[in-house]
């Protein structure tokens, strides 16, 4: 009997499934059921069961990602939540950081605090920054607050005391008392949810955690129970925002950590194919209907950050949402997708996004009433998309409508032909993504030219090669199953648990043996969560910076001699590489240590293309070739028909059900044994491209 592994990713529109077993990958897609998400899950499993009898009974594990937490916050469907703070500081949640996230908007908006002022309470207690308790917790006062919370039928309580990250004693005692007084109320305490300084961010994180806890834990319990009823006997694992995994009981304790589970799984999938194809550092690129997402992954480790925001007023503007400090993959989200709308701005120039036509009314070519030109309309006019083969032909596109929208809204005001305007949209959306990517790559201290672009999402492969060219990237990989990348990523991610500790000590004064003991302690704690027989791998790193700076650079470490010297050298090299200079005025500080304990990677077997001989083009069509700046008659291939090892010279287009890969002049594509398309991006094209742009414009 085959042993299956099942990945389930609930997104905003679709719930995706990937099942790996017996050398096969099976995928399924059903519509999400927002009110009872488990309904869609069970529906999809039932469908899969037809081809895979006894799927759940034979399943080794189920790994799950969901947008539920984000939705609960966005839609205001969380618990009636109260906040308890140190006396004098209940307004911190509303005062925030007092800054405008954009200097040029006199009508700036912020989301309302999740806890209204009348449900924010203060209690006498005080701890100083060094952890000294100068005022013990006023237990009587707290019990009086608890009584009031009971009267007001509060469902969840967040507790955030000043400096609780340094000394949790008062908060821990408050939790005990509230559990006694309010046994049926969910409680989140800041020293557990987010033990780091900066009171506003910590309070906000703790409040979001409390706010979503009940909805999330009820959902997870319902799901686990439903799976058990269908003979599933093993653990239900939840993916966290940093690609780590958690059992249901851990996820229920800190639901805020699940916020970005779906995107994290997408990154895991890209990183898996990077490992399979031995790619070195990659830039994972996903482009869907509304957004594009980018993430750097190096040696299987994705870029990480601890600052995230949920429920932004402006989706792509940092500072317009609730800050949440959790370990999360550092994804760059850009307002650029197939539905992004192109318009003429006040300067008489074409602007693309971030506004999106979404799926309703959608791009003009959908014929659903959309009249504004979008990226998808441009892709269709340029011949990148096939009007008769969108979603495998399930959805017919209207090329005339696309052209009419582009002509009316852009062509007339600028004097550009529809083709020139469409190529403008294509260039601009790619430039928007490239501009954001350059800043992102700088922040990560990397050179774009060294990365491989791994592309997914419906619109990703249409734009990936041109985006890569703009970034100086020489290789693009389009993996198979790109329509269900996240659910596949749930299975390719090794079970991993991460632990960290703040150190804040000058590097020269650090006791290396002591540090070793701390690492060992953290690793033992995390390893206990892995399956007993698993081979465990520990990945250690240090956060180093110059004393006085806020941002640290992460330096890997694996033990050995002369550690401090090597750490220092690694830090200086990384700093110099990133910033072009080093500082000789300030000493180096060890901010924190981190370790990730994971299962040794067991790659699920994914077989590649099966064709015995090279596929011939299934047809030819006129396509705008961006790096030539002109339209050419190019061959069209069916991806499923390609042979492993087959080579295709650009310009060409390769179609599949969920996407289309567009290849430029001088580029060449090879199909690898896992079914990935490997595109060698032609060099020195910048020059020809820019000459071409002028030609198009003048055409």
């Amino acid at each position, binding site marked *: 009997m085959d042993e299956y592994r099942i990945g389930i990713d609930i997104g905003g529109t679709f719930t995706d499934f990937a099942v790996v077993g017996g050398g096969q990958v099976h995928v399924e897609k059903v519509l999400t059921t927002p009110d009872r998400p488990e309904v869609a899950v069970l529906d999809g499993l039932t469908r899969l069961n037809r081809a895979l009898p006894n799927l759940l009974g034979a399943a080794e594990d189920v790994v799950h990602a969901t947008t539920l937490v984000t939705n609960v916050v966005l839609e205001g469907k969380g618990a009636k939540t109260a906040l308890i703070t140190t006396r004098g500081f209940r307004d911190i949640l509303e005062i925030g950081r007092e800054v405008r996230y954009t200097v040029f908007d006199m009508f700036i908006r912020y989301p309302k605090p999740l806890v209204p002022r009348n449900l924010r309470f203060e209690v006498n207690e005080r701890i100083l920054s060094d952890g000294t308790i100068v005022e013990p917790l006023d237990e009587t006062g707290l019990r009086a607050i608890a009584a009031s919370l009971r009267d007001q039928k509060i469902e969840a309580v967040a507790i955030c005391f000043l400096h609780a990250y340094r000394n949790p004693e008062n908060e821990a005692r408050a939790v005990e008392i509230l559990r006694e007084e309010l046994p049926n109320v969910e409680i989140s305490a800041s020293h557990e949810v987010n033990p780091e300084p900066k009171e506003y961010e910590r309070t906000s994180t703790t409040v979001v955690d409390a706010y979503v806890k009940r909805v999330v834990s009820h959902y997870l319990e319902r799901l686990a129970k439903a799976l058990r009823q269908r003979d599933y006997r093993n653990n239900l694992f939840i993916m966290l925002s940093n690609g780590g995994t958690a059992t249901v009981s851990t996820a229920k304790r800190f639901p805020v950590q699940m916020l970005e589970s779906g995107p994290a799984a997408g990154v895991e999938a890209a990183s898996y194919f990077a490992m399979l194809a031995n790619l070195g550092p990659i830039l994972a690129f996903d482009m869907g209907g509304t957004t594009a997402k980018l993430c750097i992954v190096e040696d299987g480790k994705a870029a990480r950050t601890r600052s995230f925001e949920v429920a932004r007023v402006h989706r792509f503007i940092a500072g317009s949402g609730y800050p949440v400090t959790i370990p999360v993959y550092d994804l760059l989200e850009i307002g650029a997708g197939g539905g992004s709308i192109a318009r003429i701005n006040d300067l008489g120039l074409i602007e693309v996004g971030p506004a999106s036509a979404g799926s309703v009314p959608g791009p003009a070519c959908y014929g659903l009433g959309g009249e504004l030109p979008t990226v998808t309309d441009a892709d269709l006019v340029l011949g990148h998309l096939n009007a008769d083969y969108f979603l495998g032909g399930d959805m017919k596109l209207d090329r005339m409508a696309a052209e009419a929208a582009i002509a009316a809204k852009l062509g007339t005001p600028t004097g550009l032909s529809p083709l*020139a305007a469409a190529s403008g949209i294509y260039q601009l959306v790619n430039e928007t993504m490239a501009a954001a990517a350059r800043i992102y790559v700088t922040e990560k201290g990397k050179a774009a030219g060294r990365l491989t672009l791994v592309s997914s999402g419906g619109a990703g492969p249409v734009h990936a090669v041109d985006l890569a060219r703009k970034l100086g990237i020489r290789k693009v990989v389009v993996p198979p199953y790109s329509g269900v990348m996240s659910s596949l990523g749930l299975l390719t991610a090794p079970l991993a648990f991460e632990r960290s500790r703040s150190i804040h000590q000058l590097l020269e004064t650090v006791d290396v043996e002591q540090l070793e003991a701390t690492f060992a302690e953290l690793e033992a704690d995390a390893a206990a969560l892995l399956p007993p027989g698993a081979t465990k791998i520990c990945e250690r790193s240090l956060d180093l910076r110059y004393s*006085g700076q806020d941002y640290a650079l992460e330096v890997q470490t694996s033990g050995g001699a002369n550690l401090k010297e090597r750490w220092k050298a690694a830090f200086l090299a990384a700093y110099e590489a990133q910033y072009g*200079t080093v500082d000789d005025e300030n000493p180096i500080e060890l901010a924190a240590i981190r370790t990730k304990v994971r299962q040794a990677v067991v790659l699920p077997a994914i077989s590649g293309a099966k064709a015995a001989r090279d596929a011939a083009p299934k047809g030819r069509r006129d396509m705008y070739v961006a790096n030539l700046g002109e339209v050419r008659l190019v061959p069209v291939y069916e991806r499923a028909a390609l042979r492993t090892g087959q080579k295709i010279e650009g310009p060409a287009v390769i179609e599949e059900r969920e996407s289309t890969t567009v290849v430029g002049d001088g580029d060449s594509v090879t199909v690898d044994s896992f079914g990935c398309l490997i595109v060698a991006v032609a060099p020195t094209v910048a020059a020809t491209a820019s000459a071409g742009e002028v030609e198009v414009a003048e055409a």
Partner: protein
Amino acid sequence: MQLDPVTIQVLWQRLVSIVDEAATGLIRTAYTPSVKEYYDFCCAVFDRNGNMLAHSTVTTAGFLGIVPEVMRNFVKFHPPETLEPGDAIITNDPWLASGHLIDISIASPIFHRGQIVGYTLCIVHHLDMGGRMSTLESKNIYEEGLKIPVLKLYERGKLNKAIFEFMKANIRVPDKVLGDVRAQFVANHVCMRQLINLLEEYQLEGLEDLAHEIIERSDASLRAKIRKLPEGTYHNEVTLPPIPQCPDRVRIKVAVTIKNGGVLIDYAGTSGEVGAAINCVLNMTRSYSAYPIKLALDPTVPNNDGAMRPITVVAPVGSVVNCQPPAATWGRTMISHLFPEIIFGALEDVMPELVLGANGGCPANEIYLHGRRRRDGRSFLAIQQHSGGFGASHRFDGYSTLCFPNNTRNIPIEVTENEAPVRFLRKALVSDSGGPGFNRGGLGQVVEFSILDGEQGPEDFAEGSVRLSNRGETGDFPLQGRCGGGNGRGGGLWLNDKPIDHGIYRRFKPNDRITFQLGGGGGFGVAFKRDAGRVRDDVIAGLVSIEGAARDYGVVIDPRTYEVNHAATEALRARGCPAERRIA
């Protein structure tokens, strides 16, 4: 070369992303909170003629009108033929650069194929520049610290160590300040590298054609919006609250003329320089005078020379808004932060839907604490900033505690307590402080902290200053509401519960308790017409008291049920709004 609309947009977008990338490099390598938390800096890129083409989107409004002038001055002192690759020019001269010594400007020429194709500039508000610290008491610039003439800090990539040594010898925290100077150099380096990549990628010889498009289009865009306003000259005149220990009162007089798609802002009739550190150089006056125009009329166009061109700012030489050496300038924001409000006041009847009520914390509050702590014998220097309530507009209530017109984040209490021997006692919204109105002004806040005991030995000390607006509901220059809205309330500074002057540097003893309050924002529209349900929501949240609801809004709320008593409300409202009575 004729550029098409697509190429222009692609290249323009790229220039903005280049300066933002430079800003990223700066933030990530800087030490001072004014960079990391306040974003009190800017990075910009220029063409070879010194025209500003792009300005980092992360910045403060105070640099808007300054940056182009600084570059022009640098080029005057160091013409292109005197520059070589790897050079970097430095100054903190208030008149040539950004208006006070604590801002350091560093510019670098960008060479491509042996020619200068442009310049990059980074200005940063530093932690310390020697001299008296953070006080309005200085009578002239010589008291205020070290002035760095326009010099080459780097010559062909080689650091001029003499400049660093002079700085080291004159400032309190040289390691941090020099670290930040290096961070500025990082920013310029990033900008230079990426600009050259851009030129190579698009095979451009220079930036002139692009510069022309950027500047002309930005200029035309703002002019088109100005033309929608009725032409005419509109006036406002205010007398500022007394400046502590300064006998002179400051009167600001402005005439805003809208004509031919241009705005002329003329400060004729404004008081002369004063013997206190609040004088503005013209660059600074230009920045905060242009800001409200751009904010209201053309906020989405990226900053560049063209976006400023339709706006002309003039002021009499030697006036407090166009001061001359050796005037003291450290606290120039005491005046410059007020310009947006004064200009909104002049234009209130011309464009009522595009003005804001006063910001309750304006001019910005600023706190310096400095000393040595016993715990580790290290000296500390902690700066903080807190904000008052945002002004209401015709569309919305003002947010509580939101910064304007500058834009500085507060420093977390936990960060300040970790740096300095203080304990905060509260940071809380002040009920009823928001100016009443159809849309209510945001609430101000009260902040209280004490100097920790046990941290101070005989030779240890903590000293510092708290500066705030000194404005309230009444007085010569209250926190004004707009279009019938009430004034914001609050404001004050106390030491151990006794009122004291702000802006004065003083030494604190253990257990000294400093309390200050920042006012609420001005309201917009008539308060008695505010929906009673909205007033009730404010009462439930404790933003407005039950008494305040009746007094300011004519809404009677039952203290037991928190329901609106509609009959009593109607009766009370029939008697008319205090603001209406005042206008009548």
